[in-house]
């Protein structure tokens, strides 16, 4: 009996090793599962979705899948950045492997790929988190390696690179002659659009995760801990700052002199664009990372608890729906269809009647 007990010690010690290892591996589960929310883009007929190991196209009317890329998901390939469409039906996709994929938007076939953006960095694999931005014959891609890449679409080569010491999560914003680039490490840069030369940069004091928005010389930037800031677009000087309760994750939305934005505590704000004075605030339910979307006199707000339609003028309720998962991506409105992307749901993309909130279609996961 004593001998038997002694013999059990080794398996018990090994079991303890496995248990501790498994629990710690479980703690890092987010690295194995989804590490972001779906990125979506649409034209008038098709919605393009980048989520987990696939990029796929769905018919907006029916929700039927048109194509999926790659044909067989690969263990190391993940996509979350909203794809960008060119006028000649190319779909530009940024991967979590740091590679830029150029697909045929009609078939999903790979046309070419840009691998100079790939590579390991000190913080691990370089990733493309913010969506690429198409500007004529050029696409701008911000990478977590700290570089903004300006890539010629015809030449399939690098026009210029702007190097920072920062981590870039946000898409760049392209204006007439300037590219605005916001870094997670709290800095915003203004670059010459043709050459990529630095025009000015400002430290905003809070992390920036989404692209700035420009209107009437006001450059609006959401930050972590330093609220929403309005900067002079010409030189980056502060015009006004709106203090928020939580982190402002998504880009603000501007409509008729009013700026709408939200924070991760779930608070939605409307403020005067010129002065930054508050017009209204409301707290639907659940954290918000997506930019609100304005459609006519309505504002659509996606939260981790559902989708809320409110009157843009005063925030009064119109309708609200449960979409079966966390809606953390920016919603899209195409004609009268509201497209919502969710995570932890059987149907990552769903379409709703923007007027009533009635569901039009669910679609099976592309992974299935």
């Amino acid at each position, binding site marked *: *009996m*004593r001998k038997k*007990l*002694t013999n059990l*010690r*080794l398996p018990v*010690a*090994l079991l*303890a*090793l496995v248990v*501790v*290892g498994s*629990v*710690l591996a479980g*703690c*890092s589960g*987010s*690295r194995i599962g*989804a*590490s*972001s*929310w779906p990125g979506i883009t649409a034209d008038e007929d098709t919605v393009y979705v980048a989520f987990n190991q696939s990029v796929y196209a769905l018919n907006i009317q029916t929700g039927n899948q048109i194509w999926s890329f790659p044909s067989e998901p690969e263990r190391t390939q993940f996509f*979350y950045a909203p794809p960008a469409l060119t006028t000649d039906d190319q779909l530009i996709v940024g991967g979590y492997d740091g590679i830029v994929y150029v697909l045929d938007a009609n078939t999903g076939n790979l046309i070419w790929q840009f691998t100079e953006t790939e590579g390991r960095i*000190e*913080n*691990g694999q370089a*990733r493309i*988190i913010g969506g690429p931005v198409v500007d004529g014959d050029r696409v701008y891609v911000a990478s*977590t390696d700290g570089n903004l890449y300006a890539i010629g679409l015809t030449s399939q080569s690098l026009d210029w690179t702007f190097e920072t010491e920062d*981590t870039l*999560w946000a898409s760049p914003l392209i204006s007439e002659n300037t590219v605005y680039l916001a870094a*997670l*490490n*709290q800095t915003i840069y203004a670059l010459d659009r043709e050459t990529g030369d630095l025009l000015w940069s400002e430290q905003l*004091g*809070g*992390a920036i*995760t989404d692209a700035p928005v420009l209107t009437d010389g006001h450059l609006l930037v959401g930050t*972590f*801990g*330093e609220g929403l800031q309005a900067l002079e677009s010409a030189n980056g000087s502060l015009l006004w700052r709106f203090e928020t309760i*939580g*982190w402002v*994750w998504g880009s603000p939305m501007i409509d008729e002199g009013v700026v709408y934005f939200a924070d*991760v505590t779930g608070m939605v704000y409307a403020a005067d664009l010129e002065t930054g004075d508050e017009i209204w605030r409301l707290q639907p339910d659940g*954290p918000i*990372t997506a930019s609100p979307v304005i459609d006519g006199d309505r504002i659509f707000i996606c939260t981790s608890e559902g989708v809320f339609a409110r009157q843009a003028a005063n925030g009064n309720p119109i309708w609200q729906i449960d979409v079966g998962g966390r809606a*953390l991506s920016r919603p899209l409105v195409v004609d009268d269809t509201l497209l919502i992307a969710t*995570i932890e749901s059987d149907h990552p993309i769903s379409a709703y009647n923007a007027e009533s909130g009635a569901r039009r279609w669910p679609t099976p996961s592309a992974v299935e």
Partner: protein
Amino acid sequence: MWDLLILNPMINALLLIYDFLGDNFGVAIIIFTALIRLITFPLTYRQQVGTQKMQELQKSKRWQDVQKKYAKDKQKLQEETLKLYQEAGINPLSGCLPLLIQLPIIFGLYQAIIQALADAPLQLLEFSKHIYGFVSSTLIPLNSQFLWMDLGQPERLELEFLPGIGIPVLTILVVITSWIQTKLTTPPSPEGQGGQMSQMMTIYSPLLMGYLAYTFAAGLALYFLVSNLLGIVQYAATGRINWRNLIPFRKQE
């Protein structure tokens, strides 16, 4: 409950230390580990005293007699052994307590490090839920660089003259310090079951720690290393340490 009692206090303590020390997460982990060691010292001390008492008891003639007398009657042997423990004022489970306290700290710290050094949107969003209102959000993103390592990634030192080869320096140090700590703090056991168990602990404990240090984030390995070093220092401070036990193949004193 886990978040409320373990994870949130750990994350925020780390953030406050990080803020106070000028944005150095490595130093924050070292200070945090020292604090944890300090807080759990009374328990560790009690465990060490209990271990020493047990060691003395196992050397006593009464113990040896009981073992021999009831060698074939397992139930009676247990009853008599428990009596001896009671008479000597020893709680046989007291040795497990510091280990049981260490486990949630290890799990919590690992979660805290991974979440604090979030490198993807969902992780960062999750992290935001754990930060207390009085902790400044402007600390985000945290600086994960410490010496040559990224604390959110498994540690490897790459040298110029050894291209493509990453040396797991922290893992090696964790294995060595774990072995030293186990050797110094594990009491010599009598021959038989206790002795085998003791030997196995000396081998498997450093290997387990080394495996974890090699596989998981460098921040956790840094915690193991500092915790081991402080454990040795604490044990030395109690005056019970016998450095001769480190000599290989030498019977422990």
